[in-house]
């Protein structure tokens, strides 16, 4: 008997802890919505949701655990109601429940949904029962098709977006190291500029007179002469 009680206590403690965690996360989310509203960062909302869903998942796992006693087998029976305010209860419920009175107890200890909720639920159940199973199947199919179509749209959009970002990260080539080296060598040593159409010309010691350019005023033509020289004579033959 004592052992069962201890297990029960431990389980309740664990459940309580999980519930407190979930409550904390929910409060954080509420604060975030209040403070940031629509300006909020979408990924951070998603983060909050996933945290909460994970916490709910652990809670459910805990409840379904083999070692956890089946809580629904236990009854909670209010023995005594008291209209006077109870300090301890106030602290334990974080100021929501001032006293263990007629007002609060039915709500706190109820095991069924609220009456109007129950009514709505029943109305839906009745409606469902009325609908022909074929029509229902047809509606389900149509719905599935619409959902699938939307999914497809989202997926193609996502694919497009992803290829675009991929293209942006692997930019097209804008420079070539090989070309840089060719250019630097050409600039530094003249490699590639020298015209080697024929084997090297006559021995450099045999100098032919260079084109005669007499006065300074005509020296613009000096360079022109050189261009001409390059076009007509082999540069090494000079």
């Amino acid at each position, binding site marked *: 008997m004592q052992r069962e009680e201890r297990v029960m206590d431990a389980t309740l403690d664990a459940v309580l802890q999980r519930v407190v965690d979930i409550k904390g996360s929910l409060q954080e989310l509420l604060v975030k919505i209040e403070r940031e509203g629509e300006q909020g960062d979408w990924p951070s909302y998603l983060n909050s949701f996933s945290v909460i869903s994970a916490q709910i998942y652990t809670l459910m796992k805990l409840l379904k655990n083999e070692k956890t006693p089946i809580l629904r087998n236990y009854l909670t029976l209010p023995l005594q109601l008291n209209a006077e305010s109870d300090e301890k209860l106030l602290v334990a419920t974080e100021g929501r429940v001032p006293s263990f009175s007629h007002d609060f107890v039915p709500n706190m200890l109820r095991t069924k949904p609220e009456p109007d909720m129950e009514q709505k639920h029943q109305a839906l159940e009745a409606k469902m029962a009325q609908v022909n199973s074929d029509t229902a199947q047809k509606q389900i199919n149509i719905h599935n098709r619409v959902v699938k179509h939307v999914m497809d749209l989202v997926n193609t959009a996502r694919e497009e977006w992803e290829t675009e970002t991929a293209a942006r990260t692997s930019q097209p080539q*804008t*420079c070539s190291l090989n070309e840089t080296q060719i250019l630097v060598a*050409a600039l530094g040593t003249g490699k590639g*500029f020298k015209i080697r159409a024929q084997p090297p010309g006559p021995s450099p010691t045999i100098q032919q007179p260079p084109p005669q350019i007499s006065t300074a005023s005509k*020296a613009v033509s000096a360079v022109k002469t050189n261009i001409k020289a390059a076009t007509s004579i082999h540069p090494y033959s000079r």
Partner: protein
Amino acid sequence: MAMPVNVPHVGENLEAAMKSQIVPDQEFLLQGSVLDTSLGVVIDRLRGLCDNADILPETFHDHEVVFVLKDFSAMSTPGPASQGVMLRVRRAMDYPDLPYQLRYVGYPELGNYPALLRNCLDIPVSNNVCEFLTELGAKLDHEFIAKGFIMKKGRIKVTVFKMYKMGIGMAKDNLEQMTMSHMVELSVLTTKTDMSVAEDLRALADQLKPLVQLERIDYRRLGP
């Protein structure tokens, strides 16, 4: 008219400047290239980074003739005399009235500098310089056309240009291009005592990544 009584030598001034190492004869250089297809992007980026972003970058169209001065009669002996000195003559084809530039560029210095460091002299000269060099004993080695844009950012000179070969039967508007890329050069002239500007050069180069990879490239270490 009050004139200074003692006229110092031109040479004396220069010697004094050399002694105190304030002659800007050192050049820091970073080189890279950009494929012609991406030229527009690089120019736009550079316009944003450089001075005078509100006006179009200045263009240039230069003809460079490179001479080698050495003792051609004593070719077989090794040493600096047989290697000779490269002397580069540049003229602006689009501004024929500007003086020609005679340029001497030394070998890259060894050492761990943020950019390629070399001795460099840019000397404006009269336009008979080609004849002068020929008579001096130099020989025409090669020549080419460089066409492109020039910008500046503070003391840094930024040039983006394409090189064209000159050869047989080449019309002025039908030049043979060297590669499918434009050369990109960042350079700054400085003195032996002022090396701080090299970091600015690196910073500008980093801002051009990954469009252009600007590096210190020693052309002597490139393949044969």
